[in-house]
């Protein structure tokens, strides 16, 4: 087997560590790291900052909220140099398309960019997304010129509709937000990855780095991780581990896995054993 001639393997990836030209493009964003890093629920500003240093993401998510009028509005992002990251504000908290659109407008004013993660919750208990609201918000915001990354369920047709509506990326959840339960529906997630042309980013519910790697091995464009890092016992090391796992999974996808065999095949030669009866 002549490895480098294999058409499924980009030439660039053979020579170097992470493929030097394996950047992920979504609208204006160009990401070398395929780990999108959340910034919520961290135990402290310091921990968040150290996690970002360890995981080295290019893109981070943010929420937009009322500033506390007492105390000048200090918050956990205070210590961060946001200019080092591509900012992906979300519309978390919205339960209707209209609310999401309003939050997108506010986020645009704050970030001076038109990247937005559309998130319209349809059920307060599971925080699972509202199909109709997500689709409507995506349509309107795309129309307005936003680069929309749409958080969605693992519904395959809805993912297709979001792509048709102009989403720059579709973000099916692995499991409900904050649960860290891991991938609940491998079949649908893989189907979505296979059917869509736009990047598929796995969002919500991942628990451990191996699951992030697994998504990447299937061909996901990126993963978004927040709770699994923020709530780990050692968030900084966990952030680093997620960073490594995403690189490993992406690399494995590009390298092309061995074919599964349902029959056992020896790894050591079967011939050439010393005579047993001599």
């Amino acid at each position, binding site marked *: 087997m002549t490895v480098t001639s294999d058409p499924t393997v980009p030439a660039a990836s053979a020579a170097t560590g992470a493929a030097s030209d394996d950047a992920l493009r979504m609208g204006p964003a160009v990401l070398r790291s395929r780990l999108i890093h*959340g*910034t*919520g*629920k*961290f135990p402290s500003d310091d921990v*968040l900052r150290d996690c970002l240093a360890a995981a080295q993401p290019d893109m981070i*998510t*943010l*929420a*937009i*909220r*009322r*500033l506390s*009028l007492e105390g*000048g*509005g200090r*918050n*956990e*992002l205070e210590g961060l140099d*946001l200019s080092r990251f591509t*900012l992906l*504000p*979300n519309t*978390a908290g919205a339960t209707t398309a209209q609310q999401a659109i309003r939050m997108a*407008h*506010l*986020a645009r*004013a*704050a*970030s001076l960019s038109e990247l937005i993660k559309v998130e319209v919750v349809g059920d307060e208990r599971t925080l699972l997304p509202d199909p109709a609201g997500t689709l409507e918000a995506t349509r309107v915001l795309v129309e307005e010129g936003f680069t929309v990354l749409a958080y969605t369920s693992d519904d395959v047709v809805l993912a297709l509709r979001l792509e048709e509506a102009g989403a720059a990326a579709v973000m099916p959840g692995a499991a409900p*937000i904050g649960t860290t339960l891991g991938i609940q529906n491998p079949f649908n997630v893989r189907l979505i990855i296979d059917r869509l042309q736009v990047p598929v980013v796995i969002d*919500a519910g991942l628990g451990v780095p191996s699951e992030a790697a697994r998504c990447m091995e299937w061909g996901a464009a990126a993963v*978004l991780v*927040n*709770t699994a890092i923020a709530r780990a016992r050692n968030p900084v090391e966990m952030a680093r581990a997620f960073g490594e796992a995403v690189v490993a999974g992406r690399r494995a996808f590009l390298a092309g896995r061995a074919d599964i065999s349902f029959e056992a095949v020896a790894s050591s030669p079967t011939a050439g054993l010393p005579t047993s009866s001599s």
Partner: protein
Amino acid sequence: MSIAITVNGERRDVEEGITVAALLASLDIRASRVVVEHNMRILRAGDFGDARIEDGDELEVLQFVGGG
């Protein structure tokens, strides 16, 4: 004379004729870090100094916070 406005859902009494920029300053908020929605209309930062607040106005002063 003072007027009654709503900032981030809370009633406040402020000086008549105050601008958004002045309101932020009085609250010790750096204008560079926030987004202001004035009666549901988003203000550009450059307009904070010109935007005069009237009696009954509603303001939302928002910023980025950690989120997923």
